């Protein structure tokens, strides 16, 4: 555990950092259409890349910390506000609130590293690798459908599903957290592009419908 002085210092530094899509914060507010489709960035979520064989001993130990590891494409497992997304047969992405990071007094990813110990696999802090854009509202799926070839029909794509795919021509993880809420996780360098792309796709819903 970090000592108190280091933690205070670390918190001070955190106030200076900028999230990848912070530049677009105002544009997201302006481009959101209340009750139709809204976009915001959820910055600085704690993320950790896990590569471990879920059937092995090390996988079980890591799974005990995260509340299970997903077994197949699309699955999301986890406990509380910590979620583990399936990226590959032995590759997972853990997403947790910003406060869970050990630089802010949390336990992650330290607890995962301890759980893996010297077992085969790896735990990497990927908190700065991706950012999270949250798209919500009754038109959210219509916006995504403009640039995502997946079947997003609610009958097929259910809440609590996350898929690694292409959105607007760039690789991103698409995670449906609620019936009308999607989290899109692009890599940091793609965040601005995808933010602008989503704003453009949302623009038509701001104007009145043409009969």
């Amino acid at each position, binding site marked *: 555990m970090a000592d108190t002085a280091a933690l205070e210092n670390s918190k001070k530094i955190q106030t200076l950092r900028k999230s990848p899509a912070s530049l677009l914060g105002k544009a997201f507010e302006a481009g959101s259409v209340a009750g139709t489709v809204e976009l915001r960035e959820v910055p600085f979520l704690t993320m950790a890349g896990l*590569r*471990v*064989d879920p059937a*092995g001993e090390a996988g079980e130990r890591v799974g005990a910390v995260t509340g299970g590891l997903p077994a*197949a*494409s699309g699955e999301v497992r986890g406990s509380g506000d910590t979620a583990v997304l399936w*990226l*590959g*047969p*032995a*590759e997972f992405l853990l997403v947790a609130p910003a406060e869970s990071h050990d630089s802010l007094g949390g336990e992650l990813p330290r607890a995962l590293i301890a759980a893996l110990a010297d077992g*085969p*696999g790896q735990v990497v802090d990927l908190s700065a690798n991706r950012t999270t854009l949250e798209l919500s509202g009754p038109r959210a799926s219509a916006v995504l459908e403009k640039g995502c*070839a*997946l079947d997003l029909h609610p009958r097929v794509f259910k809440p609590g599903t996350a*898929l*690694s*795919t*292409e959105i607007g021509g760039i*690789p991103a993880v698409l995670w449906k957290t609620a019936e009308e809420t999607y989290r899109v996780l692009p890599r940091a360098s793609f965040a601005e592009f995808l933010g602008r792309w989503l704003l453009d796709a949302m623009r038509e819903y701001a104007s009145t419908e043409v009969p």
Partner: protein
Amino acid sequence: MLLIPCPNCGPRDETEFHYGGQAHVAYPENPAELTDREWAEYLFYRDNTKGAFAERWLHSTGCRQWFNMLRDTVTYDIQAVYPMGQPRPDKENTATGTTAPTVTTPVSPEGAIK
């Protein structure tokens, strides 16, 4: 656009994949003993089959796993999808081209091996 049935993720657009060339090109047993010509043939010479062709694919924006695929180079029919390291499925079983792709067990988790 091809709709490629990834053994892990199910059918996805071709743009999510990378092509890995001809499958089942074995690394020479003893490369040092090869003549320049044989080595060049191993490195650069590939079949240019008209019809069923076994090739490697990588689902780069999805599960990031390699797999083999038997594809007809004329009709673009995907006749079979099978894991790396498995022998090419018998041609007689897949010749019709209309059979559903064989979705097999997930490939070995290479990433997890230390």
